[in-house]
């Protein structure tokens, strides 16, 4: 029977020989010390084995049950965006020489990988307006938690204020991450316009606060009052930490321009497919002043003994193989391949392309929002947004009914935000990228108009 499993390395004969060697009559006897009732409850009721051809058609059958953005019009965003990825990106990133999730263990012989990391870091510095970037982190959420830890090390303080408008899942990760180091987290509430309430932030901030963490644009797509927040943080001796959407700086200022000390974010919009929400990568950058407190690996450029450009891993004294328990982080692996993918993506679109696609996303999102605001029963929370916005459903319509109606029309309308924010009932986060064609927007608008009419509102 076992001989039918072509891909198992041990043949029936191998197994018999091994059992004979240890003096057991059959394989079941290897597990004789597991109580019988336990064994029964873990019995596997597996279907019969398929041959490769059968398996492939079964998998296709299952895959057809998925709905995906190639077949549906998608307005999903909330941190994971459907930007167009030029085909050169995958072509270069899938070269076998690059296939690793790690920065190399014997780094100096991997000059190509180090150079790619170095270029990646330089581009992240341009996007964030910071001086130094590391070789990437696992994701935006862990990068944000690491930024809080870093701020606590720098200021020798033990508390952090995070904005209510920060991605709620990032907030959860921060709370989990900082539970061990015993860092207190306070959440700074938002106002009716869906941005951080700076008056409340002022009341909340104390001398124990190491940093104020905000997101730009925030989780609801809105533009925060960064200048006020920066002033509140810095007057208090706290660091200003900004989590940003890298595409947004195509038209918005870089966090460096408005005084951020540490900038982090999720790199998914930079050439990573949506892939069920991950994996992508996190990026992390800071000003020169704090570079020795930056976690993770950093590639640097230098000259070899013959005077040629060479790349190396630098500032390693921060890391655990040198500083042991006092290392800036125990993060030593990252998402090297996803970061490399984004490096290729950034090179492919260039600064001009970034501006263009940020602009198109912005224009179309605002166009759609204005149209929605004119449909009886529907409204938007605010116009103060980049490429995604909160659409408020008519009172008569539940989020679930709305979603189902839209899915019937092959439209994925966006994320239901009410499940994260009880202060925002019947709210859908609608996101636009350059991939949402004008005709898609009109299909969406006409669907909303029909709903409005059917509810007797129009």
């Amino acid at each position, binding site marked *: 029977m076992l001989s039918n499993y072509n891909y198992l390395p041990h043949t029936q004969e191998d197994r018999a020989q091994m059992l004979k060697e240890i003096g057991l009559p059959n394989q079941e006897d290897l597990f004789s010390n597991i109580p019988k009732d336990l064994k029964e409850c873990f019995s596997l009721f597996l279907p019969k084995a398929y041959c490769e051809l059968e398996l492939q058609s079964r998998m296709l059958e299952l895959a057809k049950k998925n709905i995906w953005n190639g077949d549906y019009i998608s307005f999903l965003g909330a941190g994971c965006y459907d930007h167009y990825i030029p085909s050169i990106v995958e072509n270069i990133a899938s070269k076998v020489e690059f296939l690793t999730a790690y920065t190399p263990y014997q780094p100096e012989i991997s000059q190509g990988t180090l150079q790619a990391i170095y270029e990646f870091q330089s581009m992240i510095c341009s996007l964030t307006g910071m001086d130094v970037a590391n070789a990437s982190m696992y994701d935006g959420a862990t990068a944000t938690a690491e930024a809080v830890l870093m701020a606590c090390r720098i200021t020798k303080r033990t508390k952090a204020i995070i904005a209510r408008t920060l991605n709620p899942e990032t907030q959860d990760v921060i709370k989990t991450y900082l539970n061990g180091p015993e860092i207190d987290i306070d959440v700074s509430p938002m106002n009716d316009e869906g941005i951080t309430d700076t008056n409340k932030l002022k009341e909340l901030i104390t001398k124990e606060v190491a940093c104020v963490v905000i997101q730009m644009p925030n989780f609801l797509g809105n533009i925060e009052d960064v200048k006020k927040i920066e002033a509140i943080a810095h007057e208090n001796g706290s660091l200003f930490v900004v989590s940003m959407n890298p595409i947004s700086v195509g038209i918005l200022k870089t966090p460096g321009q408005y005084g951020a000390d540490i900038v982090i974010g999720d790199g998914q919009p930079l050439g990573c497919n949506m892939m069920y929400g991950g994996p992508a990568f996190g990026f992390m950058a800071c000003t020169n002043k704090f570079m*020795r407190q930056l976690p993770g690996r950093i590639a640097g450029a230098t000259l070899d003994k013959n005077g040629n450009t060479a790349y190396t891993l630098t500032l390693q*004294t*921060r890391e655990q193989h*040198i*500083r042991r328990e*006092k290392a800036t982080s125990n993060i030593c692996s990252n998402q090297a391949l996803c970061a490399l993918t984004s490096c290729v993506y950034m090179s492919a679109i260039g600064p001009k392309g970034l501006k263009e696609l940020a602009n198109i996303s912005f224009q179309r999102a605002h166009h759609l929002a204005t149209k929605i605001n004119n449909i009886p029963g529907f409204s938007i929370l605010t116009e103060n947004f980049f490429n995604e916005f909160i659409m408020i459903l008519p009172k008569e319509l539940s989020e679930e009914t709305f979603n189902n109606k839209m899915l019937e029309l092959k439209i994925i309308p966006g994320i239901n935000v009410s499940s994260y924010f009880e202060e925002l009932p019947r709210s859908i986060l609608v996101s636009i990228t350059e991939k949402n064609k004008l005709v898609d927007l009109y299909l969406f608008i006409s669907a909303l108009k029909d709903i409005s009419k059917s509810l007797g509102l129009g």
Partner: protein
Amino acid sequence: MTIEIPNNTYCTKSHEYITIEGDTAILGITHYAAEQLGEIVYVELPEVGTEFLKGDIFGTIESVKAASELYMPVAGKVIEINETLTSEPELINDDCYTAGWIVKITGFSQDDLIDTLSSADYLNHIEE
């Protein structure tokens, strides 16, 4: 080459030195420590005005080989830091007792010196 430890200087087993000059004291790391660390590339200095207890970490020294914490041999308040070290950390390798000093402190007590070693005892200690 040995560099002589100046007068009125006491050393710790963790290789900091403290030179007493009246009410103030100069802190740094010993020549032996600097040699062991190798080429020093970065010194993290405390802020002027910070008050430390004996045994507190007042800074960090990084060399190409290692990063080490600096411990206060006595309690005291920082009145001056050697800012030149920010751009020229190698001064510690070249001249740890003069140009390569790290901080100056005041408000310390002679009693705290009881746990430090005289320069002669320190030299014996590192020979061992």
